């Protein structure tokens, strides 16, 4: 039973190996392998989720080493919920990639690499989530960062390579910091296993070095999560990567960074003597508030659709980290929930933006004027999910915003609550610009009102709309993720 | 008070609306027929009111209808539409119907070729109905509704001729009146606040323990509100614009009835709402007396300065209405009776005067006094009627004006208010100064070239002259047969008795 955890990692990894081998002749074969791998790991995750929900935490020590020594894969509620989100999105993106990549990468060879890297991502992401110790987290983090860089750089555009390198340098630096932090932490506590750490935190007498170590880790994860001053890599990378990859980057990767921060905060919360801890928390809060505002303003100033979305991600990560850093009950809940919600919304947005790009080859809002009529389904999805990102009920963005707000007030930080709402207000403005461009600007300077419908292929539309509906569904029936997250938070606090 | 239930008031109230069914058809055929119908309806109203007179003179209260706009339970915002008539109400309705009748008959000839006849006749009839509504109002809510309706309906009547002058006058009128109506509304609400109800005919609904200050506030608000219609001194700005601008029959009802409406409302406020006792206790009469006296003096002087006849008459109206208010506010039986009879007297004579002015104009004459030399020879009937009515206005003995002024003066002496008496007499003198020159010019001055070009054939059709003659005759007859039952004085006695609680 516990081996499922391993299988979830192994299967896509095998896919990554087989895909280039089998796909030598035909890239379709590579796609099929990636798809099958994604499907298999997805169904395994669904099964795993069932098990975890009914029996609680499941862990699997690799090679039968004891928990505090060896490598451990573990799945608790949070992990499972995130796994489900991440892999479902991964699966949908795989499906979506087929048509998109066909056009983006005319050479079959590069397509094969693409699927190979995608499989690597699909292996590394769940592995990162399931990692039971910090070092395993670091390893998989490096792995998927690497795969992500390759995928960013695979695009045809020259800037993509540069953006990729930039991301690589920054994320590696972040990785190094994480490693350093892990080393320090294990030096002072004697373990890297998260469970063990959680237990030991309460008994630590010399708090300061531990705090420093954890802060360093948080900075490292902050780079991955593109938290405000560390976000420099993000806009270009998101903007110039192929759209499915932008979706993964924005929808999953930065969330995984936030997940890392979350795990660190879980450790911090356990500390009994809180000398500097509020200080760290405060800094995190302020960083995320700045991120919220900066990202939103940045998005308002952009012209390029995908860049708008990228800046919006900076802002949304701010929400997540704010919720986490407030570390009040509702705040944690909201932050965790927003990881899921933002993953769904942002990937839907990037995918639909990708669909527009795919059909029209246009990126800026000015060029995209009137596309809403030409591509009703893609643009419609963009418009609908945009509502979620703005935080309008009943879409999912609202729910997490709600909890984060409550968290802020619960923590006695009314000002942060107002900042959160201010951010969502600012997001209205950039959302409005998109909607205006798509729907309410005359096409061709108003000469021609009838536009031939030229819609993206079904293989792209279906994932887009599944995600769009998911973003609404998660808003309306938000009890589903929340009940597990609540248990998680209750256990931690 | 004895009450009698009878639907008659509703019929009287609705009767003028009957015409509205005919006018659209009739004006297409011929305007004259519409005018005849309108006159006929006025006559009918007049006749229907007449049987009520003996009843109310016996002190009965006729209660006709109560429509509740709001259910009668804990939430009672006094939205009750009720029609009741006591002597004062019937008296006022009767006078109004009479003036209306005169004006309507006059219209038959006067408005033969008017533009927008439909609008005119509809509003002319509707206004009568609203006046009835005011006269028969059983509470302040009803009174206010019709007061407001009357205000608005007056606007098209004044602007009827659609000259720029008329339109400007109408604008002035509506602005003044709307402000006044707002104050009336405020007064009504104040009454509700103080008394908890809006009933009339109770001779003082305000509780006796109410402070003098609040009563003063109430009375001042009421004076300012109703004062606009009755053209008290600082609020009379509209009257000398509106009267000349309106067509003659409209001026007649404006001057005869519209201004009376304000006085009627104020008297109701003083005697029905505040009540004689409270008025006397707080010496509140002075609040009304003083502006009334000022108005009498100043507007009379202003009237003297006018060359335009209708303007002159308009200022005079302002002064004459103040006599009525003065009579009511002096709080003595005689003066009250004087004021009440003056309502009728003034209405009839002023209507006659305005109709005469209209007839002169219709015959091709000028409205300017300076161009009326020798007019008496050319249109003797009209000018004789004018003279009689004018003399009555001045208060020369056998005429009605004398009676009312006499009563007022004795009333003022009763409460030892010599100042008022002096000013009354001064007012009479001034009115002689502005009326007599007209008569003098018409009969005794030579016809110069300045006189308007009126054909020698005496343009005097029956429809024009008959109302004038009736009006002039009434203003003499009423003065001679003062005590005849049904004539104003008989009403005044009953009314003052009931108001003053005797």
């Amino acid at each position, binding site marked *: 039973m516990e081996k499922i955890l391993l299988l979830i990692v192994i299967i896509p990894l095998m896919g990554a190996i087989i895909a280039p081998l089998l796909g030598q002749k035909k890239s379709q074969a590579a796609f099929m392998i990636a798809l099958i791998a994604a499907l298999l790991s997805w169904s395994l995750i669904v099964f795993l989720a069932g098990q975890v929900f009914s029996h609680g935490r499941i862990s699997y020590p690799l090679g039968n080493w004891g928990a505090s*020594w060896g490598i451990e894969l573990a799945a608790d509620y949070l992990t499972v919920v995130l796994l489900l989100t991440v892999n479902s999105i991964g699966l949908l993106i795989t499906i979506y990639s087929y048509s998109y990549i066909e056009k983006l990468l005319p050479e079959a060879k590069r397509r094969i690499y693409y699927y190979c890297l995608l499989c690597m991502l699909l292996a590394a992401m769940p592995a990162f989530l399931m990692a039971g110790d910090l070092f395993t987290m670091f390893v998989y983090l*490096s792995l998927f960062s690497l795969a992500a860089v390759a995928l960013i750089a695979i695009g045809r555009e020259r800037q993509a390579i540069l953006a990729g390198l930039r991301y690589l*340098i920054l994320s590696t*630096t972040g*990785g190094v910091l994480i490693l*350093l932090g892990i080393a320090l932490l294990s030096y002072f506590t004697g373990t890297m296993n998260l469970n063990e750490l959680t237990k030991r935190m309460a008994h630590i007498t010399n708090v300061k070095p531990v705090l420093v170590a954890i802060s360093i880790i948080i900075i490292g994860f902050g780079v991955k999560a593109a938290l405000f001053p560390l976000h420099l890599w993000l806009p*270009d990378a998101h903007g110039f990567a192929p759209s499915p990859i932008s979706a993964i980057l924005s929808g999953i990767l930065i969330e995984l960074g936030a997940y890392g921060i979350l795990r660190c905060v879980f450790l911090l919360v356990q500390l009994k003597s809180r000398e500097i801890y509020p200080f760290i928390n405060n800094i995190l809060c302020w960083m995320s508030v700045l991120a919220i505002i900066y990202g939103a303003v940045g998005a308002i100033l952009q012209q390029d659709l995908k860049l708008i979305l990228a800046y919006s991600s900076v802002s949304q990560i701010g929400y997540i980290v704010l919720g986490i850093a407030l570390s009040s009950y509702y705040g944690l809940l909201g932050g965790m929930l927003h990881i899921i919600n933002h993953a769904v919304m942002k990937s839907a947005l990037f995918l639909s933006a990708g669909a527009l790009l795919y059909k029209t080859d246009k990126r800026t809002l000015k060029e995209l004027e009137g596309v809403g009529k030409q591509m009703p389904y893609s643009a419609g999805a963009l418009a609908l999910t945009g509502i979620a990102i703005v935080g309008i009920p009943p879409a999912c963005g609202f729910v997490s915003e709600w909890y984060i707000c409550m968290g802020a007030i619960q923590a006695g930080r009314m000002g942060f609550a107002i900042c959160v709402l201010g951010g969502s207000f600012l997001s209205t403005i950039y959302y409005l610009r998109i909607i205006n461009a798509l729907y309410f600007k005359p096409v061709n300077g108003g000469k021609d009102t009838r536009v031939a419908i030229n819609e993206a292929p079904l293989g792209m539309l279906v994932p887009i709309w599944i995600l769009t509906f998911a973003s609404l569904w998660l808003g309306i029936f938000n009890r589903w993720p929340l009940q597990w997250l609540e248990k998680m938070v209750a256990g931690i606090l | 008070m004895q009450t009698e239930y009878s639907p008659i008031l509703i019929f009287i109230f609705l009767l003028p609306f009957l015409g509205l069914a005919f006018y659209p058809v009739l004006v297409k055929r011929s305007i004259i027929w519409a005018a005849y119908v309108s006159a006929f309806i006025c006559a009918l109203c007049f006749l229907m009111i007449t049987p009520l007179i003996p009843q109310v003179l016996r002190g009965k209260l006729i209660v006709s209808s109560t429509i509740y706009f709001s259910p009668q339970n804990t939430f009672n915002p006094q939205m009750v539409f009720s029609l009741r008539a006591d002597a004062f109400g019937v008296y006022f309705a009767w006078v109004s119907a009479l003036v209306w009748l005169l004006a309507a008959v006059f219209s038959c000839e006067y408005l033969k070729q008017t533009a927008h006849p439909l609008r005119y006749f509809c509003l002319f009839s509707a206004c009568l109905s609203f006046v009835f509504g005011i006269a028969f109002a059983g509470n302040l809510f009803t009174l206010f509704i019709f007061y407001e309706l009357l205000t608005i309906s007056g606007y098209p009547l004044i602007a009827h001729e659609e000259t720029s002058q008329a339109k400007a006058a109408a604008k002035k009128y509506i602005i003044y009146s709307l402000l006044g109506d707002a104050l009336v509304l405020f007064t009504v609400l104040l009454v509700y606040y103080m008394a908890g109800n809006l009933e009339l005919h109770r001779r003082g609904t305000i509780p006796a323990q109410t402070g003098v200050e609040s009563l003063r506030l109430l009375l001042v608000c009421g004076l300012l509100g109703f004062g606009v219609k009755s053209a008290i001194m600082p609020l009379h700005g509209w009257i000398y614009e509106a009267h000349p601008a309106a067509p003659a029959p409209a001026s007649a009802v404006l001057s005869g009835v519209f201004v009376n409406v304000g006085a009627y409302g104020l008297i109701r406020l003083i005697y029905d709402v505040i009540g004689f006792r409270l008025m006397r206790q707080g010496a509140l009469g002075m609040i009304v007396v003083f502006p009334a006296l000022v108005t009498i003096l100043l507007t009379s002087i202003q009237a003297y300065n006018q060359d335009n006849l209708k303007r002159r008459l308009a200022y005079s109206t302002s002064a004459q209405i103040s006599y009525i208010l003065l009579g009511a506010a002096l709080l003595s039986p005689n003066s009250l009776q004087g004021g009440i009879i003056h309502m009728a007297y003034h209405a009839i004579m002023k209507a006659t005067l305005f109709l005469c002015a209209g007839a002169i104009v219709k015959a091709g004459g000028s409205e300017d006094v300076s161009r009326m030399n020798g007019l008496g020879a050319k249109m003797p009937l009209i000018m004789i009627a004018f003279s009689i009515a004018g003399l009555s206005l001045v208060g020369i003995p056998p005429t009605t004006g004398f009676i009312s002024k006499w009563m007022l003066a004795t009333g003022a002496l009763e409460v030892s208010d010599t100042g008022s008496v002096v000013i009354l007499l001064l007012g009479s003198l001034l009115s002689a100064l502005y009326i007599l020159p007209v008569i003098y010019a018409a009969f005794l001055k030579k016809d110069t070239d300045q006189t308007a070009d009126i054909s020698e054939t005496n343009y005097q059709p029956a429809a024009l002259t008959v109302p004038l003659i009736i009006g002039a005759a009434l203003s003499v007859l009423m003065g001679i047969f003062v005590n005849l039952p049904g004539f104003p004085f008989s009403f005044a006695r009953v009314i003052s008795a009931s108001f003053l609680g005797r």
Partner: protein
Amino acid sequence: MEFFLHAYYQIAAIILFFIGFYLLIVTPNLIKKILGINIMETAVFLFLISLGRIGGGQRAPILHEGIRWTECVNPLPQHMVILGVLMTLGVTGFALFLVVKIYAHYRTLNSDKLRRML
């Protein structure tokens, strides 16, 4: 002073780390930046390895009779370092690949210039 004498590995690691960090931040040259990262990583590895000395022993952690665990080094940091080195290798290799590509496209490796070109 005592501390510095005992912790010379750690001190060296910290010095190395900052050298690497300095390179990363200051030089505009992409290759040097990558070198900087490498140095940083090496520093961290050094640090990790230094953590392996639990009881002062320096033997390989092969436990058999008669050898107490305090005589051995902790194997965990070593295993981490091996994995870390592997990762670094991959990352460096790929980074260099990208650098080559960038040079082919832009004919420069100066990151300031590149930023202006982007």
